[in-house]
């Protein structure tokens, strides 16, 4: 609901009225759009958790860097057996948790075991599914044995869902996160900010900033005002691309435009009538002019996509011509499906500006083929509860920001409620393929199946517009995964 934004405007307006603090050299303030519902990335799908904690509070065995490449994290090095089943990790010596607990192979075993538990709320359990067991030959060696070769296993281990936690503190991580990263949790002022302080015992090079503050500002106009007023040293992702020209003219600011892995989709409830009929889904897809959505909602910033796959991946296939924009054909298709006069449906929208704006445009487009849309704006926790977990929706609009997450379509319990044996077979081929060529071809088949089945309407790759003070350097331009590693920031 917009209520929240409104209150935030008022709160921020009062914050602006205090005299501006001079730039504190040891402190950095990052402003991000949404407040995380909790601070444990192993216990919820919200992107905001990862933006705040990944590489700051929590670390993974292997990490993804700003270019999307795998880098050593808590594991210094690793070896994979020829059959692809055994992964030997050499762990970093001297790493420890913020409460003093040393980091050892037992934490690896515990973290995996905890994520695999039936009651675990890990949002990406598939990462751990192939794991047969974790052996701990000595404290600095961990051996993960898989039950089947899994192409993207290491990649999955680099996700926020696979961060390393300790047995003694894991239960409290949602509110008092204890990780191994360069920054320790200090304070959470709900509705406003999270404060972190540097971890002097971190294994890596000493970060520039002793203190870091993440502030939450979702309203695009307030974001612009806050960065101009100097209240934010950096804005991780500006929600109002139309403000870019004006911000670029400001000599104190630096603006970069890059991309996330966020596949922005109009998700349809495939398990609910009338969206269980492929003809209805195709009609909806044909009623939407992608380019116009990108132009109207994002001021043209956004790469069109035709399936649930990022153009940055070598296996990407351009499927934007499948079910291409054709309102006349869409109407005919609806009539064929038994809805010559259209029907009514609700569109539940989470708070990010890209969702609210695209939603309004799409509602108007669907009106043209007779589908009457009622827009229902939701706050993020409500969206997660009702749409994502409860599957209580007709249509919704969201960006899936995890890289290479096409496998969510193989999960029958996922909120799209899509079930296709053909897709599952293609995905399985990709995951068990032994050559890159075969794997990419299989991914291509999987992408094509999703586009043909019009599971969702695939809209565009979400941009990342980073605005920083000209004196700050080190923010990521692209988001191969949503993260703002503070240790990489410094003053010029």
């Amino acid at each position: 609901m917009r209520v929240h934004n409104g209150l935030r405007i008022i709160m921020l307006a009062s914050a602006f009225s205090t005299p501006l603090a001079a730039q504190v050299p040891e402190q950095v303030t990052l402003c991000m759009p949404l407040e995380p519902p909790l601070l444990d990335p192993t216990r919820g799908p919200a992107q905001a958790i990862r933006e705040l904690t990944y590489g700051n509070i929590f670390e993974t065995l292997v990490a993804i860097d700003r270019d999307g490449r795998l880098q050593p994290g808590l594991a210094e090095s690793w070896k994979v057996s020829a059959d692809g089943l055994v992964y030997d990790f050499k762990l970093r010596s001297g790493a420890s948790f913020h409460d003093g607990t040393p980091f050892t192979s037992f934490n690896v075993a515990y973290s995996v075991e905890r994520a695999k538990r039936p009651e675990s709320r890990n949002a990406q359990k598939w990462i751990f599914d192939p794991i047969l067991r974790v052996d701990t030959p000595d404290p600095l060696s961990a051996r993960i044995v898989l039950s089947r070769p899994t192409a993207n296993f290491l990649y999955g281990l680099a996700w926020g869902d696979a961060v390393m936690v300790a047995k003694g503190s894991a239960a409290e991580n949602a509110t008092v996160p204890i990780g191994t990263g360069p920054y320790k949790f200090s304070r959470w002022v709900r509705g406003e900010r999270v404060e972190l302080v540097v971890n002097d015992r971190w294994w890596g090079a000493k970060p520039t900033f002793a203190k870091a503050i993440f502030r939450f500002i979702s309203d695009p106009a307030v974001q612009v005002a806050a960065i101009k007023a100097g209240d934010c040293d950096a804005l991780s992702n500006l929600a109002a691309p139309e403000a870019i020209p004006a911000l670029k003219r400001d000599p104190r600011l630096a603006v970069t435009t890059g991309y996330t892995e966020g596949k922005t989709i109009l998700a349809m409830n495939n398990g609910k009538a009338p969206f269980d009929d492929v003809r209805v889904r195709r009609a909806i897809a044909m009623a939407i002019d992608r380019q116009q959505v990108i132009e109207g909602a994002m001021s043209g910033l956004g790469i069109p996509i035709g399936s649930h796959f990022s153009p940055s991946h070598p296996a990407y296939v351009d499927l934007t011509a499948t079910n291409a924009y054709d309102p006349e054909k869409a109407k005919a298709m609806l009539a064929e499906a038994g809805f010559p006069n259209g029907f009514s449906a609700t569109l539940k929208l989470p708070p990010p500006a890209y969702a609210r704006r695209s939603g309004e445009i799409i509602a108007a487009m669907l009106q043209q083929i007779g589908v009457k849309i009622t827009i229902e704006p939701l706050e993020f926790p409500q969206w997660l509860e009702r749409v994502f977990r409860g599957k209580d929706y007709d249509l919704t609009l969201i960006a899936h920001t995890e890289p290479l997450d096409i496998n969510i379509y193989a999960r029958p319990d996922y909120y799209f409620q899509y079930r296709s044996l053909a897709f599952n077979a293609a995905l399985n081929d990709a995951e068990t393929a032994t050559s890159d060529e075969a794997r990419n071809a299989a991914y291509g088949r999987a992408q094509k199946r999703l586009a043909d089945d019009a599971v969702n309407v695939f809209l565009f790759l979400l941009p990342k517009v980073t605005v920083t003070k000209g004196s700050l350097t080190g923010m990521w331009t692209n988001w191969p995964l949503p993260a703002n590693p503070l240790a990489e920031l410094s003053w010029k």
Partner: protein
Amino acid sequence: MTNSATKIRLGIGSAVLAVMLIAALVSLVWTPGDPYRLAIASRLQGPSSLHLLGTDQLGRDIAAILMIGARNALLVSVGAVGLSLVVGGGLGLIAAMQPDGIGDQMIARTSDLVFAFPVVLLAIMTGLILGPGAASAAMAIAIFTMPVFIRLTRDSAAQLREREFVLAARAMGASWLRIAVRHILPLLLPRLAVQASTQLALALLAEAGLSYLGLGTPPPHPSWGRMLNEAQTYLGTQPLLAILPGVAIALTVMGFNLLGEGLAARLARER
């Protein structure tokens, strides 16, 4: 205030309001363009022969949106003030008719209590109960405005209660209700009318404020306040987007205020 100044105020006030009212009424049957049809290719255009006041960030005709916005603004503010006038006036009369009674005390204290709530908070509460939208915004504004009418009727009626004609009516055996409705209320009507037009100005401003904060009419239905909100990030590219709804709000508020002042001056002279 001189007679001619009063006339000018009344004239300008009613002229501005008449224009807004006509725009709102005409929008029921005709608008210069389809306010719900997007034309992204022709977004953010300046005024032209095709689009009299230009197009917004989604290519919709601004003149058409403003007209429907007038309908929304007038409907919500008139509805809210009307409701508050009827209920608040009624409560005020009841309170005045039983001085120092429990009813009087309760009504007076309740209105003090309601006075303490800001309209935004009221709107959030009505939004939770009725669901966000124009109706809950109107309800919040009505509740917010009500103490004004309660106090005005209660205090004015309390003065009249001691006058001879009331005594005479009582002596003839008239009931309190009859005295209130037949003898006192007609004398209060001019004052209530003046107060109502001032409150209409405030109500319109409150509606714009609530819509600005997302507590009013939901998209895609046009509203002046939300137009202002959405225009903020386009200030650098197309300032008209913010100026036009701002001017519409300012003009209508001014219209209600001039009308109120004019009526008040005329009332003072008639006394």
